[in-house]
């Protein structure tokens, strides 16, 4: 089996930089419009909020929320890349060997995700997390909140920061460990790296199970500080996982259409399609399980979460979320033929990536931006910046090793994969 080295043309790299540049311009435009008061992309939310006597959210808050949203989204996708490789190792899977390097390279975004998350939390923590305000814990202050004060053992600045550092440290450690083994296997061959990778993967899966769930509470759930859901770890994981699978599938297709990954055929795409299809349904299952129990019990402190998301401002996103992330992939990817066709997979995975961005939007914005949220220049701009950076780092990672793991013991099995 021969090596396959990816070479990213200068033109493609320029496109990534262009994406970032357009993002920056849109972002600056959005900030100027918003700082100048209202603005075209602001919508009616501003007026309503002002009429209701609330203080309108500042542009810095909106900027920090967007940074946080995109960083959590892309960090999750990146983490799923490592998770997917680990699952394949532990399952002794043979079919995925040819596409393994794609998901492996996704992990290269993790250090950047760490840096951005740390900075945004340190500078914009008060804008994102209500619980970071000291007065909530001061019993003499009139804004004292006994419920949040009761959570201070877990939700406090230092413990939150330590958790964030530990999660990222572990993830980056395991990513580098797996990656190093994988590359050494290319150079030296033999099965020892494979067996070692299985052990590393098994350890990582345990770490991942705990840390991804806790990260979901910390980074997403704690935004709605009073509210809690025991399904939330799963919910965020499901959203990350299906987005990550979509990125893997989409990248494999784009590489294939550009003449790389020659040994990947419709059978591998079929399996990836099945993954995307199945985990879209899995996400829906978790979504519904969370929704129905809260809707049925109708306890005020729980149902407030969905009432916030079903008010005029977010209703369309609430239902669009279900349409894009469940109905669309469910109906389009149902047949065998659709899962084996690149064009179908491309349409669905791009839709899912947009859909799950909206899903994270819906998890974060109602609790912070309230009626002032919108999808305008700031949102699109920030997303484009993150997308450009992610693509730069991800494709750089892809070029660092052969796209075909030449000495993987199951390579032959993957080449002859047939479903």
């Amino acid at each position, binding site marked *: 089996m021969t090596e396959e080295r990816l070479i990213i043309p200068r033109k493609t790299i320029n496109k990534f930089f262009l994406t970032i540049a357009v993002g920056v311009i849109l972002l600056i435009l959005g900030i100027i419009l918003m700082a100048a008061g209202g603005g075209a992309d602001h919508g009616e939310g501003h007026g309503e909020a002002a009429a209701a006597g609330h203080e309108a959210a500042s542009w810095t808050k909106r900027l920090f929320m967007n940074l946080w949203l995109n960083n959590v989204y892309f960090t999750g996708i990146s983490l799923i890349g490592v998770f997917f490789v680990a699952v394949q190792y532990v399952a002794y899977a043979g079919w995925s060997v040819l596409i393994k390097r794609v998901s492996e390279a996704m992990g290269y975004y993790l250090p950047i995700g760490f840096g951005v998350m740390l900075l945004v939390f340190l500078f914009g923590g008060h804008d994102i997390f209500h619980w970071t305000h000291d007065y909530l814990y001061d019993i003499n202050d009139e804004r004292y909140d006994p419920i949040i004060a009761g959570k201070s053992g877990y939700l406090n600045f230092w413990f939150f920061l330590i958790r964030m550092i530990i999660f990222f440290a572990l993830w980056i450690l395991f990513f580098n460990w797996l990656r190093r083994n994988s590359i050494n296997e290319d150079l030296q061959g033999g099965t020892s790296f494979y067996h070692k990778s299985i052990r590393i993967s098994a350890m990582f899966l345990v770490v991942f199970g705990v840390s991804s769930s806790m990260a979901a509470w910390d980074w997403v759930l704690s935004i709605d500080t009073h509210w809690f859901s025991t399904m939330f770890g799963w919910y965020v994981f499901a959203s990350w996982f299906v987005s990550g699978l979509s990125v893997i599938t989409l990248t494999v297709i784009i590489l294939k259409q550009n003449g790389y990954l020659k040994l990947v055929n419709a059978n591998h795409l079929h399996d990836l399609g099945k993954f995307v299809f199945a985990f879209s349904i899995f996400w829906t299952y978790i979504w*519904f399980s969370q*929704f*129905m129990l809260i*809707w*049925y019990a*109708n306890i005020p402190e729980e149902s407030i979460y969905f009432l916030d998301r079903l008010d005029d401002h977010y209703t369309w996103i609430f239902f669009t979320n279900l349409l894009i992330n469940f109905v669309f992939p469910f109906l389009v990817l*149902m*047949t*065998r033929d659709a899962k084996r066709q690149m064009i179908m997979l491309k349409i669905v995975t791009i839709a899912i990536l947009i859909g799950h961005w909206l899903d994270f939007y819906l998890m974060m914005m109602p609790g912070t931006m309230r009626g002032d949220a919108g999808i305008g220049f700031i949102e699109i701009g920030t997303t484009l910046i993150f997308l450009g950076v992610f693509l730069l780092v991800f494709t750089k990672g892809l070029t660092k090793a052969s796209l075909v793991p030449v000495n993987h013991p199951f390579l032959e099995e993957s080449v002859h994969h*047939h479903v």
Partner: protein
Amino acid sequence: MAPHLSLTLIHLIAMNKKFVLGIYDDEDVLLEAIENVRAAGTKIYDVFSPYPVHGIDDVLGIKRSRLPIIAFFCGLFGTSFALWMQIWMLGFDWPMIIGGKPHIAIPAFIPVTFELTVLCAAFGMVITFFIVSKLKPSLKVNVFDKRATDDKFVMAIEVNEGVTDMNALNDLLRSNGAIEVNEKEVIK
């Protein structure tokens, strides 16, 4: 039962058919043989194998099953039936207030709808499969060669009395790697 006795029994009945059986002991040789035999214009009745062989459907020219279409419509029936049943029962026939919810409370109907969709799709598919493949308790199966359940692959070709050139067929099978070529008459 001694072989000659069963042969005598078969000869007593007019409705019998004669098959030529090519016995193979290698999966890859078999797949190539199937392609060559079909390319030579010989119609293969069926191939028997101890385990599923990847790619055998394609070389035999077997079209993909249409069972998934049945599954989809059975599932669709399950969805519609479940929704209609719950909406009619709780919304029109015997409206009750449960948990302060509206009579037609769609979210509460989803679990039952989901279960009935799965149930109807699964049962519909299994029952259709039984009917299409004529699987029933009284089914009699002609075992062409018992070794097809152990370590050999058996390619069965139906003989048209007087039309099929037996020697040519024998040569064709052997030249494509058959380790044995047998003849067998079975009750159709």
